[in-house]
């Protein structure tokens, strides 16, 4: 407070923002170019290329910047290993979304420039959260991410459901944001800090960790962030918003905002409120069981694959929360947070993949119900095989990526002494097989009359191929990926 304009900024600080700057450039370029150039296939291709290389660049930049935890901006941000990991996941999910959007969005008469721009802004918001170590920055990042997604959700503006879903998402999200910021205010009020490391240090000295003010702060934060991650009972917006949005958008919003939310949850609960572990873990356990149970059970009743996947994404939030519930202390030997990070990573590939095939189907003039998948394996075996692959992975069939993700979560839960929670995960995974495999059954045993014959879809091919490969490959290579996720922990 001595020097009112304490400018401690150096260029070094901006180094950690290189990945963010690249994505910002993508947002501005696509917005500007999309507005200036006349719509044409060439322009669309150029926009796609800009986006693809932008996200690739951001991923590469983030990976190159891995190493020692580097804090900057007076401790507001950090590019530690967790930030790098999450930035890679978020940017990768944006990249994969671009692949499944490149042909669908123009085909449905939506402006591609704005679309990519909003996608980039949302990605940017997520990346900011990933590298934020301050409540204020986390809030700004979450809002940037959410606001862009609201607009994306309403992108099919001629369809009533799209507007309806987006409006519901927006209204409820505002509500949850209010709760979140209220929680942040309480946190600040109790600890006198917004920096997460400071909060953690001060909390560690508290004698009475069950003080009502402290509990209230933690609970409000969990509620606010739980909403963003679609945890039951704060999940109500999810099915409507997911179903209303154009399918590529749904693919993105089922992953990126969720990963963003988990980035915030990990930062806030683990890095900031880590000392309050004993207070918040019981709540996380309850939320995880509720979320898994409701997501999986309601998904069974859905005939619409898009809506089914929406509920399944709620269920996956539940699995991730199990990993979080297994948190014991920061440091070696604790597998909980690496398992959550790994789950986010795995989830990005398989979920976007499943929605991608759905978008492909819609592009070929079909709907999104299970019946629309009938006999797909006969007329378009690569797409059907890819879908089966993703669904098997989502179910958790070895040796695919999804199996390893669940495996690590279950291990972490058992390690932490919550064997019954691990059993719940396994049981509900078995339930999930029922509704996932129904789609596979329709594709392979359904009547192929009326199934679409594929047209040439280059970007889809690349994107789906990349995701299939990732789901297969990273499953076997899960060791190194998990090690990467574990590093943050050991460095912290």
């Amino acid at each position, binding site marked *: 407070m001595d020097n009112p304009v304490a*400018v401690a900024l150096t260029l070094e600080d901006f180094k950690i923002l290189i990945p963010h700057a690249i994505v910002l450039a993508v947002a501005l370029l696509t*917005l*500007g170019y999309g*507005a*200036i150039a006349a719509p044409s296939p060439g322009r669309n291709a150029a926009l796609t290329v800009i986006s693809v290389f932008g996200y690739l660049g951001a991923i590469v930049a983030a990976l190159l910047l891995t190493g020692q935890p580097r804090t900057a901006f007076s401790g507001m941000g950090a590019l530690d290993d967790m930030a790098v990991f999450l930035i890679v996941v978020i940017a990768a999910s944006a990249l994969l979304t671009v692949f499944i959007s490149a042909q669908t969005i123009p085909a449905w008469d939506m402006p591609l420039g704005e679309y990519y721009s909003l996608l980039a802004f949302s990605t940017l918001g997520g990346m900011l959260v990933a590298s934020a170590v301050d409540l204020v920055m986390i809030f700004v990042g979450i809002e940037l991410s959410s606001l862009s997604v609201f607009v994306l959700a309403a992108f099919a503006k001629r369809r009533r459901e799209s507007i309806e879903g987006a409006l519901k998402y927006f209204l409820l999200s505002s509500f949850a944001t209010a709760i979140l910021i209220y929680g942040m205010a309480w946190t600040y009020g109790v600890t006198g800090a917004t920096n997460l490391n400071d909060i953690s240090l001060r909390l560690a000295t508290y004698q009475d960790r069950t003080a009502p003010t402290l509990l209230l702060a933690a609970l409000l934060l969990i509620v606010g962030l739980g909403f963003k991650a679609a945890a039951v009972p704060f999940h109500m917006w999810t099915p409507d918003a997911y179903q209303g949005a154009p399918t590529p958008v749904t693919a993105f919003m089922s992953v990126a905002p969720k990963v963003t939310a988990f980035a915030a949850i990990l930062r806030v609960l683990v890095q900031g409120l880590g000392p309050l572990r004993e207070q918040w873990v019981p709540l996380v356990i309850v939320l995880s069981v509720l979320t898994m149970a409701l997501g999986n059970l309601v998904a069974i009743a859905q005939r619409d694959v898009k809506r089914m996947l929406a509920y399944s994404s709620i269920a996956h939030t539940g699995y991730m929360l199990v990993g979080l519930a297994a948190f014991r202390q920061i440091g070696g030997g604790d597998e909980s947070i690496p398992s959550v990070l790994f789950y986010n990573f795995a989830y990005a590939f398989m979920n976007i993949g499943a929605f991608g095939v759905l978008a492909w189907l819609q592009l070929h003039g079909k709907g999104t119900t299970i019946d629309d998948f009938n006999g797909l394996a006969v007329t378009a075996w690569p797409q059907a095989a890819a879908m089966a692959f993703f669904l098997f992975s989502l179910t958790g069939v070895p040796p695919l990526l999804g199996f390893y993700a669940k495996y690590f979560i279950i291990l972490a839960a058992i390690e932490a002494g919550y064997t019954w929670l691990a059993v719940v995960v396994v049981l509900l995974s078995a339930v999930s097989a029922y509704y996932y495999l129904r789609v596979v059954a329709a594709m392979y045993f359904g009547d192929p009359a009326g199934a679409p014959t594929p047209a040439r879809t280059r970007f889809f091919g690349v994107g789906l191929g990349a995701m299939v490969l990732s789901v297969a490959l990273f499953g076997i290579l899960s060791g190194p990926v998990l090690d990467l996720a574990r590093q943050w922990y050991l460095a912290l």
Partner: protein
Amino acid sequence: MVDNYAIILIMILTVLGFGALLLSIGVLVRPYKPTPRKLQSYESGVPNIEPLKGRYTPRFYVIAILFVIFDIEAIFLFPWAVAFDQLGLFGLVEMVLFIVILLIGYAYAWRRGALEWV
């Protein structure tokens, strides 16, 4: 610490008190002879055509949002201008970047016809 807030509290009380004082003077001093026309909302002297609870065209919102955006830009320029000496070249570059981003937004809004009253 409390002292700092005390000043703000005094400020708030003063503003409220002064406003209340002026308004009550007006109420006490002015004559009060209402006619229906006088009770209408003031619309720049033009008689009201329809009730106020009707719908507005969304163009108003677009203009309003654009106004807010560029208004805030202008507001943000003030503190920067005041602290320009301390911020130096670094601040200049920062501000240029900021304005460039806004300009792209401006160009976009212009190009998409948001500034035209069609």
